[in-house]
C-alpha cells in the first residue's frame, strides 16, 4: 500500500524523510534509541518511555501484530506493561504491513492510530542511532505530511514525568503472608506480577505518598521516566525509610532514587541504555548477567555514602547498575529483573528481596 510521507525533525533542523504510519498527527519529545530486537508491545506501553520518541534500531517492526488488551485476575495487563502507549512516537526502518501471529488482533499501525501515537518508517535507523550515540539524545518531532510543524520542542526532562504516569490512588494486589509497599513511579505491570507470583501482597501507592506510614514488610521503588532530580519528595521519604531496617528494593528509577537518598548524585547519560543485551557484573564476583535496560540517567557511585557500595556494574561502559547498603537490607538494580521485554536472567533478585522480608 502507498503511505503518506512524513518527516522526522531534529531540534537542530536536520530532517529525515520517511513514511507515516499509525496516528496521522505530529508529535514531539526526546528521541532515544533501543537496540532490542523483539518486544514492541511491551516497550511502547512501558511508562519509563513517557515523553520520548522511540527509535528501534532493528529494522523490521510490526511482524507479529498486537495482542488483545486483556487483564488478568489481578487487574494487570497480561500482555502489556500498562494500559496505554507511553512513547510519543515510533521511528523504524521497515514496517511489516501484514502481521502474522495467533495471538494478534490488530496491526501495530492500527494500535498506534487508536492511541493517537504517530509512527514513521523508512528511516535509516542505524544512521539515526549513530547520530544519537555521537551527539547524545536529542529533541525532535514526527511530522506527517500536511500537519503543522512544531515551532519549538519542549524538553520532557524538565517536566516531572513520574508525576504524569504514577497512579493517583492506592491499589492492592494479591494476598500473601508478606506485604510490600510499592512506590509507583511509573511501574511496569510485570514488576507487580513478579512480586504477587511470589506470594506477596502489593500495596501500590503514588510516587509522592509517604509510604513510611503504610504498614508493610518491605518497600519497593519502581521504574519510571525522566529525571530523578524531579522526584525529591520520594527521595525524602526514602531517606526516612533508610533510617529503619525495613528491606528496600528498587529497580531503574528506584535505583536512582535510592542512590540519591543514599547521598549520591545522578547524572544524565549521553544516550542512555535501552536494549536487551546489557552485560552487568555483580561487583566482587565472577557472576555476570545479560539484562534488559531502559534508562537515560545513572547513579554516580563516587558520591555514595560510605555505608553504601555498588552492587552491579555495566561491563560495557563501567556505569553503575545497582547499589546496596553494606549492612542493612537495602539494594537496587538499574536494569530490569522483571524483563518484559527482554531476558529473564536476573529475576532471582525478587527472591533475594523477598527472602529479606
Amino acid at each position, binding site marked *: 500500500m502507498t503511505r503518506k510521507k512524513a518527516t522526522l525533525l531534529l531540534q537542530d533542523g536536520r530532517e529525515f524523510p520517511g513514511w507515516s504510519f499509525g496516528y496521522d498527527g505530529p508529535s514531539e519529545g526526546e528521541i532515544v534509541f533501543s537496540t532490542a530486537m523483539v518486544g514492541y508491545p511491551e516497550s511502547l506501553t512501558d511508562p519509563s518511555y513517557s515523553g520520548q520518541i522511540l527509535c528501534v534500531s*532493528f529494522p523490521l517492526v510490526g511482524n*507479529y501484530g498486537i495482542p488483545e488488551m486483556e487483564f488478568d485476575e489481578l487487574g494487570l495487563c497480561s*500482555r502489556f506493561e500498562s494500559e496505554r502507549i507511553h512513547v510519543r512516537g515510533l521511528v523504524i526502518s*521497515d514496517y511489516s504491513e*501484514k502481521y502474522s501471529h495467533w495471538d494478534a488482533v490488530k496491526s501495530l499501525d492500527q494500535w498506534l492510530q487508536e492511541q493517537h501515537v504517530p509512527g514513521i518508517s523508512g528511516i*535509516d535507523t*542505524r544512521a539515526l542511532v549513530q547520530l544519537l550515540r555521537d551527539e547524545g539524545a536529542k529533541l525532535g518531532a514526527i511530522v506527517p505530511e500536511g500537519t503543522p510543524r512544531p515551532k519549538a520542542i519542549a524538553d520532557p526532562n524538565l517536566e516531572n514525568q513520574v508525576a504524569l504516569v504514577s497512579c493517583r490512588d492506592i491499589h492492592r494486589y494479591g494476598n500473601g503472608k508478606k506485604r510490600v509497599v510499592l512506590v509507583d513511579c511509573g511501574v511496569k505491570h510485570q514488576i507487580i506480577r513478579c512480586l504477587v507470583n511470589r506470594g506477596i501482597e502489593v500495596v501500590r501507592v503514588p510516587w509522592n505518598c509517604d509510604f513510611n506510614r503504610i504498614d508493610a514488610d518491605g518497600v519497593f521503588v519502581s521504574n519510571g521516566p525522566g529525571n530523578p532530580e524531579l522526584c525529591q519528595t520520594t527521595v525524602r521519604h526514602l531517606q526516612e525509610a533508610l533510617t529503619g531496617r525495613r528491606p528496600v528494593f528498587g529497580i531503574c528509577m528506584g535505583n536512582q532514587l535510592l542512590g540519591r537518598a543514599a547521598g549520591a548524585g545522578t547524572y544524565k547519560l549521553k544516550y542512555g541504555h535501552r536494549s536487551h543485551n546489557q552485560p552487568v557484573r555483580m561487583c566482587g564476583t565472577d557472576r555476570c548477567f545479560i539484562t534488559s535496560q531502559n534508562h537515560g540517567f545513572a547513579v554516580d557511585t563516587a558520591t555514595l555514602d560510605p555505608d553504601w557500595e555498588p552492587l552491579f556494574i555495566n561491563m560495557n561502559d563501567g556505569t553503575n547498575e545497582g547499589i546496596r547498603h553494606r549492612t542493612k537490607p537495602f539494594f537496587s538494580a538499574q536494569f530490569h529483573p522483571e*524483563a518484559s521485554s527482554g531476558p529473564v536472567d536476573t529475576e532471582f533478585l525478587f527472591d533475594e528481596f523477598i527472602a529479606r522480608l
Partner: protein
Amino acid sequence: MLDKTIRKVLLLGSGALKIGEAGEFDYSGSQALKALREEGIETVLINPNIATVQTSEGIADKLYLLPVTPFFVEKVIEKEQPQGILLSFGGQTALNCGIALHRSGFLARHGVRVLGTPVQSIIDTEDRDLFVRRLDEIQVKTIRSHAAASLEEARAAAAQVGYPVIVRAAYALGGLGSGFCDNERELDAVAGKAFAFSPQVLVEKSLKGWKEIEYEVVRDSCDNCITVCNMENFDPLGIHTGESIVVAPSQTLTNTEFHFLRKKAIDIVRHLGIVGECNVQYAFSPDGEDYRVIEVNARLSRSSALASKATGYPLAFVAAKLSLGYGLFELKNAVTRTTPAFFEPALDYVVCKIPRWDLAKFKGVSREIGSSMKSVGEVMAIGRTFEEAIQKGLRMIGQGANGFVCNKPYKVEDLDDALRNPTDTRIFAIAAAFESGYSVDRIHALTHIDKWFLDKLDNLETTYRALEACPSLEAVGCELFLKAKRQGFSDIQIGRVFHSPESAVRQRRTALGLHPCIKQIDTLAAEFPSETNYLYLTYNGAKSDFAPAYGARTVIVLGSGAYRIGSSVEFDWCGVNAVNTLRKQDWQAVMVNYNPETVSTDYDSCDRLYFDELSLETVLEICAVERPFGVVVSVGGQIPNNLALPLKEAGIPILGTDALDIDRAEDRNKFSQVVDRLGIDQPRWRELTTMEDIGAFIAEVGYPVLVRPSYVLSGAAMNVCYSDADLHTFLELAVEISEEHPVVISSFMQRCKELEFDAVADHGRILVHAISEHIEFAGVHSGDATIQFPPQKLYGVTAARIRRMAAAIAAELHITGPFNIQFLADAGGIKVIECNLRASRSFPFVSKVLKVNFIDLAIRCMTGEKPQPVTLDAFELPYVGIKASQFSFSRLNQADPVLGVDMASTGEVACIGDRFDEALLKAMLSVGQRIPEKAVLLSSGDAIQKADLLPACRQLHGYGLPIYATEGTRRFLEENGVPALDGSDAVTLIRTGQVDLVVNIPRDFTHGELSNGYRIRRAAIDFNVPLITNSRLASAFIHAFCTTALPTLPIKAWDEYVPYTSM
C-alpha cells in the same frame, strides 16, 4: 582464569568435506587454533583435508595429514603427548573419534584432558535415551517415540502424547506404512495398515507445521551463560535445518516466546554442564506456546558458523578460550575491541541463509528434501528488509535465479504438489504460485510456511507487477525504482521486466542517483563505535558507515561463493592466501564473498570484508567506493573468473592476466586456435547444431565421444556416448540442439593418463609449476580422480614435453598469475584438454606438498613485485602426496555411486608418505575406505578391465583374503588360476556383512551397463561397505594394503616430510 597447566593441545579436524560436514569446521578449527596460539599454547592438528586453511603453515604448530580415526589419533597422542584435546571443532567426525578414545580409556591412560565440554555431557546429548532422561530431570520436553505392539497400545500411546500423531511402522524402510492421524478413527486406519508391515508401530506427537527455532548458547566454567543468536527456519519442521532457508534473528516470535525459548536453552546448557558453545534446536507450535527440544549439539556446528557470521560474534574463537578456563567476562568483543565478550549481539539487519543443492549432478537421486541433508553448500545474504536479503540470497546460490521473481518459467505438472512436498526448488514453486494467482492463505495451507514470510514474498510479486505496469524502463519513477531496489531487485531483474540489458538499468539507476549504502556489522547495532570493517550493501539506508581514504593502496579479492560440487574449500584457501600476501605487501586487502562456511569471510582475515554478492552490479558498486588499484579474479574459481571480461569492459583494472587473454582460454574456439597455432595437439572436437552434422563428425572420429550440450533440459550436463543408440537417447531426452544451443562433440580418449599442470607465471614466463598424475585413466573427472604428486612413473621426456607446451601457452596468453592445464598422455602423444587461467582445485595440494605457496607467488606477480622463479624440482622429492576424493553417496538416496565425466565428489583429502603405497593407504583410509578383513566382492566390466584387475586379485589371494566374484568375473579369475567364491548373490553378501570391500567396475558409462551393477553399488553404500568403482584405483589400493601393514605406517608430521619453509 587461564589454566596454565595446559601447554600442548591436540585438535581434531573433520577430514574431507562431505554433505553434512563441510567448510564450517575449517572455519571453527582455524579460529580455535588461533585462540590457542594467542595464549602461547603449542598446537597439534590432525586433519587430512589438505585444501583447508587450518592445514596451512602457521596455523597449527604441528600438522598431521592423517585420518581422524582412533588408530591414528592414538599414535599421534603417544608421539606428541599433549595435555589437552579439543573435540568440538571437527564436527561429528572429531566428536565420534573423541568419544571412542574416551570410552576405551586411552585418554585417561595418557593423561589427556578433554578441554571444554566434558565428554559425559557430549554423550548425554548424543545418546537419545540419555538425552531424553537428562532433559526430563529439568522438565524440558523432548520428542519421543512410543512403541506399540497392538492397536490398543497404539491408542493408549496416542492418547498420552495427544493428537495429532504420526504413526510409523518400525523396521520398515522408506516410510512404508506411516501416516498422520488427527483422531482415533484415523489412528485405527493407519495403525491397522502399519501392523501389516511390521509387528510394532511407533507413535509420536505430530509436529507437522511447527516452527523450527534454534539458539546458539555459550557458557563458561563460572556458569555465566549467553545466547549469541537465535534463528528461525523459513521452512516448517520436517526439513533438516541444513536444508532449510533460515533467517536470523527470528522474525515471527513475540518477546514472550523468544525469551521463553531462550531461558529453556540456558537451563538446558547449564544442566548438561556445557563449557563452550552449544546449539539447541526447538520445534515450536505456531498456534500456542508448546514446544519440544529436537536436539542439542554440544559442539560447534553448521549453525554456529552461520551464527558467527550472522552476528559477528566469533563463537569458535570464544569457545576455545573458554575451554582453557577463561571466563566470558575476561574476553573482549572481537568487533568493538572495547566491550566484553559477555554480551548478546543486537542485529540491525536481517540475515537469510539459503542452501545450495547439486542434485542434478547425480543420476537417480530424489529431488525431495526432508529430514536428512542433501545440500552441498550454503550462502548467507544480509539486508535491512527480508525481501532484500532473500532476493540477494536466491541469486547467490548460483543456480540461474535472478531473485524471487523475474526468472525462467518454473515448469511443474502439479503446482499444489510442488508446494506440498518440498524439493530443492520449492521457493520457486511459491513464486510460480503467486504468479498464477494463489493467495497467501492458500500457499500457507499447502506449505505451512508462516504467513509473515509469504506476505513478504507477496510484496515482491506486487512490486514486479507495478514494474510490469510501467510502459518502459524510463517510465519507472524514482520512488518505484527505489522501492524495487530496497526489496533487493537487481539491475538484471529489473531489466528482465523491460527486456533491457543490465547496463541500461544501471545507467537509468545512476541517472536517478540510486546507489546502495555500505553498512557495518558491529554486534551492537551501532550502540558503540566499532573498528572492524565487516560490511554489506543495502538500499535501505541513507548514510554509509564507511568511506575509504582515497589514494589508499587497495586491492579487491573476489571470493568463491557457495560451495558446490567442483568448487569448494580449496578456493577459500586460495582467497585467504591471496589476502595474506596482499597484507604482507602493505596493500589494503578487501574480500568480497558470501559463503558463511569460509575463513575468507572471517572479518579479521582482511582489511575490509564485503559480505555480499559476487555479481557485476555489486562488485562495480564496491569498486566505485573502494577505487581499488586492481581486482583479483583468479583465486576464487569460476564465479570471479567469469567477471573478468565484464569488469574490464566497465573500466575496472583486473590484476594479472588480461581479461581478453582469459577469454582466449575460456572460449573453446579461441583456445583451439591458440593451441593449433602453437602446434599443440588436442582431442578432435567440433561445435555442432544439427543431428546430421553430429553424425558426420562422429563418422570421422569414431566412438566413444564426449558430448557437451550448451543447454541442458534434465540430468547431467556431459555424457560419454559409445554408440549411435547412446547418442540418440542422450540428445533426444536431455538436450536441446539448435543454432542457439550448439553441442560440443569431442573424441573421447580411453586408457590414457591424465596429467594436471598447475603453475604460476609472470608476464608469460613460468615461475613455478607442479605436474601431478591421475591414478585413474582419463574419463574420471579430475575432481573425482585420485592424484599423485609428484608422479611416480612418469617418463622424464613426457614431463619435459608437457613443460614445453605449458611454457608456450603461458607465453602466448601472456599469463600473469595462477593457471592450470590438463593434459592427456598415451603412446600416441600428449594432448591438451583444458586450460584455466585461474587457480585450480589442486593448488593447495601441490603448494603444501611442495611447501611453495603458489598463491603467494601469483599475487606477488600480479602486484608487480617480479618474484624470482622457484628452482625446486618436484621430481627430486623424497616423498609423495596422494589426493583422494570423498563421496557423499550415503546421503543421496538412490543416487548411483559411479564416477564419470561429471564431478560427483564433495570433498578431498591428501596424505604424504615416504612411499606411494603408504601415502595412498592413509589417503584412502581418510576418505572412509577400510582395509578388508573378511572378504572382497569383485564384479568387473569388460575383458580389459578384468585383466587390469588380475594382478591385484592374485595379490589378494596371496594375502589370504577370500574373493567373491560375480559370474563372469569368477570364471575369468578361475581360468587365470585365482580361486573365487560364488558372488552371484552380491546384495545378500553385502547386506549380511560377509564382505567388507566391494570392487564393482562398470563396463563403460552407458545407462544400460550402469543399471546392471547399480544394485550392487547402491547396496554397498546403503550398508556402509567400502566401494571402489575404478580398476586402476582398486588395484592400487589392494596392492597398498597387501604390501603395507597398518601398524608399520610411520606417524610423521608435515614438517618431518617437508622441513624447509618457503610458503
